[in-house]
């Protein structure tokens, strides 16, 4: 019983900051503190009339969609190879691909900055951030897709090939539909990671910031904080929707593969 009480208290600790977001987003005052001043939707209106923000959101969306697609494609290759017969050094190869999961992001940011700007002398832009985001999203994609591939019965693909399908045809017609929910959840998770990632984008964005970099700039101006709260409210709502879809997909995938749910993305 005390454990259940502790669990609830812990959830309150986890949700405390997010719960405050909408409260201050609708608060009619520029100071982010209690007591509240009254209700307003002014800050949401201001979001619509800020061209710089729209530009940043556009950059972030381009980056997040590209990173999610590339990372998922590479993740499919790695996760499928992971389920196949092993060869010497395979663990090391996969371990190395998973390394960004534990590497501090500032290390990834700094090392790519050195190579792109100092060694190759190229200008920074959205593509530099995409390159880095693919790198940090890939381990998450692989983790999600491993779950999708693990439940597959190998004999189904073999049966399709016995019935005259090519290897690719068997993959496309048999395996792909079975892992489709895993692919969707991998896309959504990497999209969410990329959309929210700050430090790499901070180092690698050129003249056009991404949304988190833009938010970082706003945090220095106290009068802009309510707008940040409004933006944050929208982002939180959006990621809860996306994650719920990802989770539903993941569960559907497990059911399709006839597995019992053991829970969790990671």
């Amino acid at each position, binding site marked *: 019983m005390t*454990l259940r009480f*502790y*669990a609830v208290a*812990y959830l309150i*600790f986890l*949700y*405390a*900051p*997010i719960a*405050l977001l909408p409260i201050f987003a609708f608060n009619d005052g520029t100071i982010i*503190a*209690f007591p509240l001043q009254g209700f307003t939707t002014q800050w949401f209106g201001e979001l619509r009339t800020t061209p710089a923000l729209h530009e940043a959101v556009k950059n972030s969306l381009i980056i997040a969609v590209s990173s999610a697609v590339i990372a998922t494609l*590479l*993740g499919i290759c790695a996760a*499928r*190879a992971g389920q*196949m*017969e*092993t060869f010497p050094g*395979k663990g090391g190869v*996969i371990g*190395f691909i998973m*390394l960004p999961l534990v*590497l*501090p*992001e*500032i*290390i*990834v940011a*700094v*090392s790519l*900055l*050195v*190579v792109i700007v*100092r060694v190759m002398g190229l200008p920074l832009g959205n593509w530099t951030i995409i*390159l*880095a985001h693919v790198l940090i999203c890939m381990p998450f994609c*692989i983790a999600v897709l491993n779950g999708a591939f693990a439940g597959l019965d190998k004999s189904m693909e073999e049966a399709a090939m016995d019935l005259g399908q090519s290897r690719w045809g068997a993959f496309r017609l048999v395996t792909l539909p079975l892992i489709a929910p895993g692919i969707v959840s991998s896309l959504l998770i990497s999209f*969410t990671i990329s959309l*929210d990632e*700050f*430090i790499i984008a*901070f180092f690698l964005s050129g003249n056009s910031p991404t949304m*988190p970099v833009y938010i970082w700039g706003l*945090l220095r101006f106290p009068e802009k904080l309510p707008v*940040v709260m409004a*933006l*944050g409210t929208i*982002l*939180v709502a959006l*990621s*809860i929707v996306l*994650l719920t879809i990802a989770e539903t997909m993941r*569960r559907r995938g497990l059911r399709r593969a006839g597995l019992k*749910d*053991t*829970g*969790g*993305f*990671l």
Partner: protein
Amino acid sequence: MATRGGLGQEARRSIALLAAPFSYAILLLAMPLGAVVLFSFWTQDFLDIDTTFTLANYEEALSQPIYRMLLGRSLWIAGAVTLVTVVLAFPIAYFVSFYVAPSRKSLWLFLITIPFWTSYLIRVFLWKVILGFNGVLNTSLQGLGFIDEPLTFILYNANAVVITLAHAFAPFAILPIFVALERIDRSLLEASQDLGENKVTTFLRVTLPLAMPGVVAATLIVFIPTIGDYVTPRLVGGPDGLMIANMIQTQFLRLNNAPLGATLAILAMLSVTVIALLFIWLNRKWLRTR
């Protein structure tokens, strides 16, 4: 199955499949990391890079008190964050694994992971709102009559950094411990109690050692990224809570001294790796003596 070269056909296909993601990681992770190592042995000569091999950066990084202090503080804060996060996370993982009905487990895990996926920057900023002088915590405690003066030891110092990071990394600690606890064969616990252990000693002598791999994974997965956190020390740390990542950023983007920044990044990584390996070794030793 084995054909020429000792590798099966399927093994060769899996090599072909791994080629794309692996080359990506080599090109965009291994080679850039190599470049950072190289840079750390070069020096910044006004606008150019002097490519003569030298240990000058390492000498400077290790002799200047400011760098030593930042590195020491980063390790200390990362250690404190790890301890707090893992200790707070264990009961949650234990609760979800042992007390929650199987059909509701994934709902609990989902609830635990949601806050982690929402804007990191804004979450950290909100801790500033909660912990501030006129913040939510102080005004509520004052309103309830628990304190007369606002608490000042909770913002713009290392404590604030520890609280905020413990919040940010919570799911990273809970999930590995949960997975380890799920793997424990429940009949072992019954056996232990049949053999005369009580609940506490069963936990200490059976559950905890079996959960150790999860605890170790949680410790590493929290400790290693924490050392490189930039946002939290910058927003809630104040001058006494800044960490090594803030200095790395300053060297790269403000002072235009990439070689020194690279050196600091490498020293941070090296110390983390040494501590992580030491921790794994100590843990192995501890498990073996039992």
